[in-house]
């Protein structure tokens, strides 16, 4: 018989940014207390700068998706910092509510 696992609310941050700027966004996340993240590659998309396709020769046009589940306090911090960073660098960010197992990890 297993004990029912503890489920707790956390925030999921999703960022879609240029790969060339990934390091700066990761630094921003970490500075705000986000303790884990996962990066996925995007293969095409469209935004205010128009549609893009991956360029096979240079990675200059590539976009990545960063997923980070974090404590709501950390998420608030991140959003503040992202607001400033997005004045300089292109990209999109959104936040939603998730329930997690083992909340002490986030």
């Amino acid at each position, binding site marked *: 018989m297993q004990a029912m696992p503890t489920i707790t609310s956390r925030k999921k941050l999703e960022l879609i940014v*240029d790969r*060339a700027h990934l390091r700066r966004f990761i630094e921003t996340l970490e500075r705000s207390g986000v303790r884990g993240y996962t990066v996925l590659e995007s293969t095409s998309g469209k935004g205010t700068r*128009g549609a893009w396709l991956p*360029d096979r020769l240079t990675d*200059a046009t590539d976009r990545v998706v960063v997923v980070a589940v974090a404590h709501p306090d950390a998420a608030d911090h991140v959003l503040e910092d992202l607001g400033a960073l997005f004045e*300089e660098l292109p990209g999109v960010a959104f936040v939603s509510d998730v329930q997690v197992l083992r909340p002490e990890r986030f």
Partner: protein
Amino acid sequence: MDHALSTLLSPVVLFFGLGFGAGLLRSSLAVPEALAKGLSLYLMLAIGFKGGVEMSHAHLDADVVSTVGLGLGAGFGLPVVAYALLRGFTRLERIDAASVAAHYGSISVVTFVAASDYLGGLSIGFDGYIIAVVALMETPAIIAGLWLAQRGQGSPRRRGFDRELTREVFLNGSVVLLLGSLAIGWLTGDEGMRAIEPFIGAPFKGVLCLFLLDMGLAASTRLRAAGGLELRLIAFGLVMPLVGATFGLVGSALCGLPTGTAILLTVLCASASYIAVPAAMRVALPQANPAYSLTLSLGITFPFNIVVGIPVYTHLARALLH
């Protein structure tokens, strides 16, 4: 001028045309990205190594100094000319104009390889050290472009020359591989060449065909995006290589460079980057729209040079330098 016909009938150019046509017609033909990148590494390793082996035979003379000088002059100077043309005749804003200008001051390795292959067909020789000039010309234009973008801006640049940018400018993959292979070719000389010739020598032209098939696909995908560009910008993509070529030809004539080397330097001046500079610009000028530069350099200037430019520059150089 039956050179022109013979260029057009070389397998290398025909495969480029095949890829270009397939792309324009929206064929489902596609070369996997990893393969395209692999072929590009192969080409740089091969030409770097061959250049180095060449250099291990020759003793360097004053021509080296003039070629390097002309190359650096083009790298720093052509962006300024390009920027002036773009700001004077097109609607591009400062940042975008600076970014495009940087692309045109730098070079296209594939155009260079196609040109050296063309010279091979005409039995025109050239000096091995020109490969070093290829590598040297990759990045000065980036610095010129940044200067153009920031000139006359009140606020100082925000983040300076950070790690990412240094990496893209000075430790750019193409530069490192070209110079590294050159050094290895120079160190190991003929013995090294004998060991790896069956990989980098004999099959080279065939691999180049496959690579240009892919470049044709890539160029036509970019060209299709040119529909949205203002006409004068497209014209720039055809005029700027001629400006660069003129600089290269006249400079070579003044310095008395040997024909083959002069032609390759001219091709370098006429070509525009679509690998190293775009990567650096994403980091250094994130506000610039990469669509402009890639459409121009890859969609317009690259095919122009492959099909028209190389034979024309060769013809002119032979007339001028004999």
